[in-house]
């Protein structure tokens, strides 16, 4: 979330697309309701008439997998009807930046961007780059004698136009690109009636006015597609165009699916990240220098190398020294794609021998789960660390499986639940809250930290005395979180927060952090002359455990605060817990003020420039250099934020601008373009390119019943999408074993519209068979008016919907929905395409 849960109440229009917060994020509705009570409108766009839709002022259906068309349609609507916030677009986005004249987009290349390589199924993005120009600036340099002199230096900077419609501006490409996303196209591709779409577009574009803000809420309905990243980009672009980023009641808000998934992402559980969103080293970065080169030098990321060093100091302590590149060589370099699907493909191919599953249940949650269970069967060993014997821990006794045929040695480590241990939980709004242990777990079960502590110590003991260089990363690991009976979680928190190993001094030699003291801000790292005297496990968390005022003069670790003061009544509650980064609640909040530093509107005041005090002030912590005036000029030769001007709110971007056009960072195009899901009932109406051209396709066991098969409409004419229930939690490991929850949703089911049910002779409550190219499952039919057939590209299409929580273990059981989902993922992140695939439904 760029904003926060409570901030939703400040919105004038709440736009839910690809999410069902009424169901999956019930707490959000307190704030949505508060907004509505203020007069705000709620838009819900979803294939099904969900519980969220039932509360909406405007509900529009759309076909799963067509969000880019729908959102693109709104963007186009805003452009055509001049509903965008022009001042915002010009000042805060890269709309005026000029693009390489060789750039061509899908409008010119039938769905492709320039630079596509068909063999490699990949883009060369050199034509997507900004045009640059050389400027000469005076910089102070030390000459040979050590004297400081001023010299001219030539620096290349992105070239910007004055008018939006100048040729080769981002905006002109952008306009041309989106011109194809007309209301008619939306109706044709998404199946949304044109008038409904226009109603949505009109309502949401009303937030382009400076005194209005619109919040977009999304979840897995946006991300679990082969074009998931571009879906999210579409929303971000729409919000930039309408000037809704950085503003109270605005933002692009990912409603995270688990209570602490935000925290685990922050800690770098994703395969391509180290803690704090530092990129994970790859084969392309054989040494520290090449790794450092990955960080922008003209954004706040210029501090990236410092953060990396702090991380290595936290991990390796004194062993990490400048001389050994801070143990950079201890960090494994990834040599390819380590995403979920790739891992299971590798397991299936026998390349991976062992698996350690911590609180995960791939036997239920993985795409083409039957195949993934067969992957598990090819392992030599597997450890499952969980609260119960999950389907994964017991994959060898799945229905229809003969345990004798499986040779995998399985270990089950009983773990403790979140309530049974102390620690922090991070909300989608990045708010870190420390939670005490409130219940005793069953005997024999242990906290994750206890298990990992034992494991680390056992590994160290196992390698003790080794002189082999490859064992150094384990032997040198600084591992000191206390002894039995339980490692001290506060010590872990201290390391994540960061502390001084030695006195930390600034450039002037003044001590800014005494030895042993906790970091209260990552600003200290940026300021420090001897930054390698700091150990910090996660720079973005710097300060979260340092003593802080709870608004009543009581000081305690920031994440443990429960102060309820709310300056500005915006619902920021700055004294409650700690919101990373730096207790900022609304990211990019420099954009909440006009370029001149005054608020866009009195009712949207968040931070503003206090000309008298020469400081940014307001209700939130400025996401900006606090003393940088709005009229401050950029120093193109400067390092980090010095290279950005007083009107560059997006400080994590190299040019300080919001990117309508992404010159780097995405594999499948600088602007979102619609491609059909892998399995789609129609031909792509926008271009001749059917699916995302860079999506990785597997063909493992193709043709076999569980293989990577692609279904076609002749056999599988119905679109299926998966969803979650409020009553169950993810793969149901916890919820399906609780009687109070099992009674609420006892059986696996599929939601079928009345029209389809009638066509297929299915009655409410019947058992039906849902089949796809990967296999079939038997489930209860829930016949409802909440699912309606839609007209797509001129032909009627039915949509069905299945929850994916069920498995064969626990009290509430049922067939595994993911047994029939495809093994394909997003072109950028590899998140599986759970939300749009083809099935057939008939009476069992």
């Amino acid at each position, binding site marked *: 979330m760029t904003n926060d849960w409570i901030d939703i109440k400040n919105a004038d229009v709440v736009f839910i697309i690809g999410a069902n917060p009424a169901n999956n994020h019930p*707490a959000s509705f307190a704030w949505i309701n508060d907004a509505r009570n203020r007069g705000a409108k709620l838009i819900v766009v979803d294939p099904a008439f969900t519980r969220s839709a039932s509360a909406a002022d405007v509900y529009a259906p759309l076909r799963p997998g067509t969000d880019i068309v729908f959102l693109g349609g709104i963007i186009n609507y805003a452009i055509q009807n001049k509903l965008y916030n022009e001042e915002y677009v010009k000042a805060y986005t890269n709309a005026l930046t000029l693009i390489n004249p060789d750039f061509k987009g899908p409008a010119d290349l039938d769905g492709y961007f320039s630079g596509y390589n068909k063999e490699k199924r990949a883009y060369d993005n050199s034509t997507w780059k900004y045009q640059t120009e050389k400027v000469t600036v005076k910089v102070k340099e030390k000459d040979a004698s050590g004297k400081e002199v001023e010299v001219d230096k030539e620096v290349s900077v992105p070239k910007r136009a004055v008018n939006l419609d100048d040729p080769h501006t981002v905006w002109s490409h952008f306009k041309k690109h989106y011109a194809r996303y007309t209301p008619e196209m939306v109706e044709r591709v998404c199946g949304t009636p044109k008038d409904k779409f226009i109603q949505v577009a009109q309502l949401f574009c009303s937030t382009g006015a400076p005194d209005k803000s619109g919040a977009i809420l999304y979840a897995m309905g946006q991300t679990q597609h082969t074009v998931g990243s571009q879906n999210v980009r579409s929303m971000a672009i729409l919000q930039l165009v309408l000037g809704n980023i950085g503003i109270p009641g605005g933002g692009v808000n990912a409603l995270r699916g688990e209570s602490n998934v935000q925290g685990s992402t922050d800690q770098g559980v994703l395969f391509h990240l180290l803690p704090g969103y530092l990129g994970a080293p790859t084969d392309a970065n054989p040494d520290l220098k090449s790794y450092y080169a990955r960080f922008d030098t003209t954004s706040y990321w210029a501090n990236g190398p410092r953060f990396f060093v702090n991380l290595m100091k936290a991990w390796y302590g004194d062993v990490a020294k400048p001389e050994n590149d801070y143990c950079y060589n201890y960090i494994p370099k990834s040599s390819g794609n380590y995403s979920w699907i790739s891992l299971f493909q590798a397991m299936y191919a026998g390349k991976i021998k062992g698996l350690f599953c911590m609180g995960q249940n791939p036997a239920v949650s993985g795409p083409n789960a039957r195949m993934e269970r067969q992957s598990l069967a090819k392992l030599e060993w597997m450890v499952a660390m969980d609260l119960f014997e999950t389907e994964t821990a017991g994959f060898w006794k799945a229905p229809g499986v003969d345990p004798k045929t499986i040779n995998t040695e399985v270990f089950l480590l009983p773990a403790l639940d979140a309530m049974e241990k102390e620690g922090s939980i991070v909300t989608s709004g990045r708010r870190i809250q420390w939670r005490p242990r409130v219940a005793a777990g069953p005997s024999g079960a242990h906290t994750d930290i206890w298990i990992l502590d034992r494991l680390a110590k056992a590994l160290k003991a196992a390698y003790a005395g080794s002189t082999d260089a490859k064992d150094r990363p384990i032997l040198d690991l600084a591992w000191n979180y206390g002894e039995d009976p339980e490692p001290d979680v506060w010590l872990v928190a201290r390391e994540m927060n960061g502390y001084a190993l030695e006195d930390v001094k600034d450039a002037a030699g003044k001590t800014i952090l005494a030895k042993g003291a906790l970091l209260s801000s990552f600003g200290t790292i940026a300021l420090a002359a001897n930054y390698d005297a700091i150990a910090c496990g996660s720079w973005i968390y710097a300060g979260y455990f340092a003593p802080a005022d709870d608004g009543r003069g009581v000081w305690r670790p920031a994440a443990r605060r429960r102060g309820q003061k709310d300056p500005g009544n915006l619902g920021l509650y700055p004294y409650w817990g700690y919101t990373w980064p730096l207790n900022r609640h609304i990211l990019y909040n420099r954009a909440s003020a006009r370029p001149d530093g005054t608020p866009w509107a009195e009712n949207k005041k968040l931070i503003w420039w206090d000309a008298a005090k020469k400081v940014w002030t307001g209700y939130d912590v400025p996401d900006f250099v606090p003393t940088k005036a709005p009229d401050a000029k950029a120093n193109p030769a400067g390092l980090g934020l010095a290279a950005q001007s007083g009107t560059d709110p997006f400080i994590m971007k190299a040019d300080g601008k919001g990117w309508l056009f992404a010159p780097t960072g995405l594999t499948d195009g600088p602007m979102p373009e619609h491609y059909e899901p892998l399995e789609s009932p129609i031909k792509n109406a926008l271009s001749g390119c059917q699916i995302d051209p860079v999506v990785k396709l597997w063909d493992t066991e193709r043709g076999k019943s569980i293989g990577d098969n692609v279904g076609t409409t002749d056999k599988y004419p119905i679109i299926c999408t998966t969803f979650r229930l409020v*009553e169950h939690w993810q793969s149901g490991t916890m919820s399906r074993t609780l009687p109070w929850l099992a009674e609420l949703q006892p059986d696996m089911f599929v939601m079928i519209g009345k029209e389809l049910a009638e066509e297929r002779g299915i009655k409410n409550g019947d058992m039906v068979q849902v089949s796809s190219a990967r296999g079939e499952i038997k489930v209860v039919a829930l016949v409802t008016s909440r699912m309606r057939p839609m007209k797509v590209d001129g032909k009627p299409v039915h949509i069905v919907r299945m929850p994916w929580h069920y498995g064969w273990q626990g009290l509430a059981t049922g067939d595994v929905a993911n047994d029939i989902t495809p093994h394909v993922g997003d072109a950028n992140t590899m998140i599986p395409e759970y939300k749009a695939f083809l099935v057939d439904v008939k009476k069992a």
Partner: protein
Amino acid sequence: MAKYGMLIDETRCTGCRGCQVACKQWNDLPGEETHNTGSYTNPPHLSAQTWNLIEYKEIDRGGQVGFFFLKRACMHCEHPACVSVCPVGALRKTPEGPVVYDDHKCIGCRYCMAACPFGIPKFDWQKGLLEGALIRKCTFCADRLSNGLIPACAKTCPSKAITFGERDQLIVEAENRIRKNPDKYVNHVYGKEEAGGTSILYLSAVPFEQLGLPKLGPAPVTTLSEQVMEYTLPFAGVWLATLAGLAAVFKFRERGAKQPEIGPAADDPHNKEASK
């Protein structure tokens, strides 16, 4: 003492069932074994083990489906039928609002179940003499109220659809909400007057009958039966006197009349003399 109530704003409810689970948790009620029969409503109805239930309703709103969630639990009437009809006074309306139940008095006659116009009290059908079958229903968390806590369902409601407070103020609040958003709400606070008023008040976007709440007049349903009970004792007196008078009159009229020769049999010992 303040008289409490709860305002349930159906337009804010998302049907998350947090209240349903919180109720079971606080009251330590077991989960029921259920099945999906094509509806989200589960368990399918209120029972001795389920005192608070969200009912899911698909309502056609002019071609567009509407999906509504009705929270069903005891209404804690101002003049509760269950309290009125319970022959042993096991049910009681407390001054704070809750209708509470004394499980030491109950004889299990189930008149309360039959009389409740909302169909709330439920019975332990599966309990024998040893376990002791009793009437079960929502208590308004009277035990929590007496400890300064608010009811578990209101406490847990994430979307703030349930507002706990003093009944009078809640009525004001409810009417305010209607006034502010006349398009959003049906212009009626259900429970303000129904069956003599209830502690639980509802606001809704659709007519309450469509949600499944009974249409009730402003009089408590037991008005007539209580009137009858008031007249019973005087009537009994008058009637006894009348009967005694009639007996005396007929006895007098009969004096001197001939006994039938064979007439009364031996149940009247005096008959022996009479027939001689």
